């Protein structure tokens, strides 16, 4: 009968006199490490507890963490340890020249500062500018601006407002074939000096345009959108007359034709981007939620009645649609202006 072997592995060390530490030494080492951690990183225990969800676990951690943190706060050990190990995770190199303060003092830099005009007071809960008298309103654009211009003229002529209607049928911002809208906008402002301008254009877009670097870009990628937005921004800047006028730029209601839809989507995005620097002066009037909230449709509910609001071409608003848009526009205009005569 064989005797069971002793599987106490510690005997191997004891036999050769190799065991140098006792179990109590291990316990002492753990306690020493715990004390050192409390002294050096006691604040970390407290921080960890504070970040925990309320409960018994958090209470237990804070029970230890708060006195440990207090103790660590009294000693300089945390700072010394941080300095000693800083090389393990060095800070980013921050150049003074890149600071906000220095950048703000630089003039002629490539980065234009955002001005107060970029914020519509109504959107940020700030005090709005006092309403001004509306003497002259210019309504312009391509064929989309008709019959909207007639609807606005009907409503405003009795209120003492001079409504100038200046549609340019078949024209577009992306084409200078018939008219260059950059030149036309400048000419309109010189001639009429309007207090407010309503712009409704975009039915004839999608033509190639010179993009950045003069290279011609085809519709309808980001390069084309950027080129279109640049032209819109130039026009909006002209119409706003250094802040003396208000501009109401109307987005395209979604057209029926899929090719036109693709163009219209880019045009609307470009309008929003172009108007960004002057949201206090250039209002983007979005027709999509009213006329085409879920894609193209001929008819919508107007005051409880199903009403056809689009022309047969699937592009333009008809008289009923234009009347609805005119009501919406007047609501916006009346936030900025008062009329010289009552209704």
């Amino acid at each position: 009968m064989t005797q069971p072997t002793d599987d106490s592995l510690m005997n191997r060390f004891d036999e050769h006199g190799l065991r140098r530490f006792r179990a109590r030494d291990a316990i002492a080492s753990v306690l020493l490490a715990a004390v050192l951690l409390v002294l050096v990183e006691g604040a970390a225990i407290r921080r960890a507890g504070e970040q925990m969800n309320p409960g018994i676990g958090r209470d237990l951690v804070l029970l230890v963490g708060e006195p440990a943190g207090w103790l660590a706060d009294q000693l300089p050990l945390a700072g010394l340890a941080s300095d000693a190990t800083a090389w393990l995770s060095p800070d980013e190199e921050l150049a003074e020249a890149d600071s906000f303060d220095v950048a703000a003092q630089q003039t002629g830099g490539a980065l234009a500062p955002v001005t107060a005009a970029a914020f519509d007071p109504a959107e940020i809960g700030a005090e709005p500018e006092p309403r001004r008298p509306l003497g002259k309103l210019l309504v312009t654009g391509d064929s989309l601006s008709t019959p909207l211009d007639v609807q606005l003229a009907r409503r405003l002529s009795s209120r003492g407002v001079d409504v100038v209607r200046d549609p340019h049928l078949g024209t577009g911002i992306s084409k200078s074939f018939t008219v260059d809208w950059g030149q036309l906008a400048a000419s309109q402002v010189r001639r009429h000096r309007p207090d407010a301008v309503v712009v409704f254009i975009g039915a004839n877009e999608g033509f190639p345009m010179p993009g950045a670097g003069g290279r011609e870009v085809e519709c309808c990628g980001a390069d084309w959108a950027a080129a279109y937005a640049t032209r819109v921004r130039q026009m909006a800047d002209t119409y706003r007359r250094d802040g003396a006028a208000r501009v109401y730029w109307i987005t395209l209601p979604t057209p029926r034709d899929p090719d036109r839809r693709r163009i219209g989507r880019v045009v609307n995005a470009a309008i929003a981007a172009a108007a960004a620097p002057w949201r206090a002066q250039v209002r983007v009037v979005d027709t999509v939620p009213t006329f085409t909230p879920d894609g193209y449709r001929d008819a919508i509910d107007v005051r409880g009645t199903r009403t056809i609001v689009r022309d047969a071409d699937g592009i333009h608003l008809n008289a009923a649609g234009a009347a609805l848009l005119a009501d919406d526009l007047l609501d916006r205009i009346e936030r900025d202006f008062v009329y010289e005569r009552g209704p």
Partner: protein
Amino acid sequence: MIHQIRLGGCLAALCLAAIAAAAPATASAASCSPPAYPGSGYFTSLKVSHVGCKSGRTVTLAHYRCRTENGKKGRCKRRVRGYRCSERRNSIPTEINSRVTCKKGSQRVVYTYQQNT
């Protein structure tokens, strides 16, 4: 002698008046209001020279009918009202923009249009 000078002066004045009267008819083109577009689009400009606006509008509409005989993207390949017409198009999938020049001797009709396709 004085009588001859007066006569010469009168003749010179008459010549100048005749030249002045003839100048507008032979020089620059006149802008006319274009007719209403029969289809989906617009006539965006109309200019005539050595011919009246009414004739210009007639030629414009005749050319429209000719070119759309073969659809919205069609072209006119024959003379209209005795005019020979050429066209310079700028097209994208949704529309055509074009300048049409029609000539008959010294008479000229130039119009531009935008046709939705």
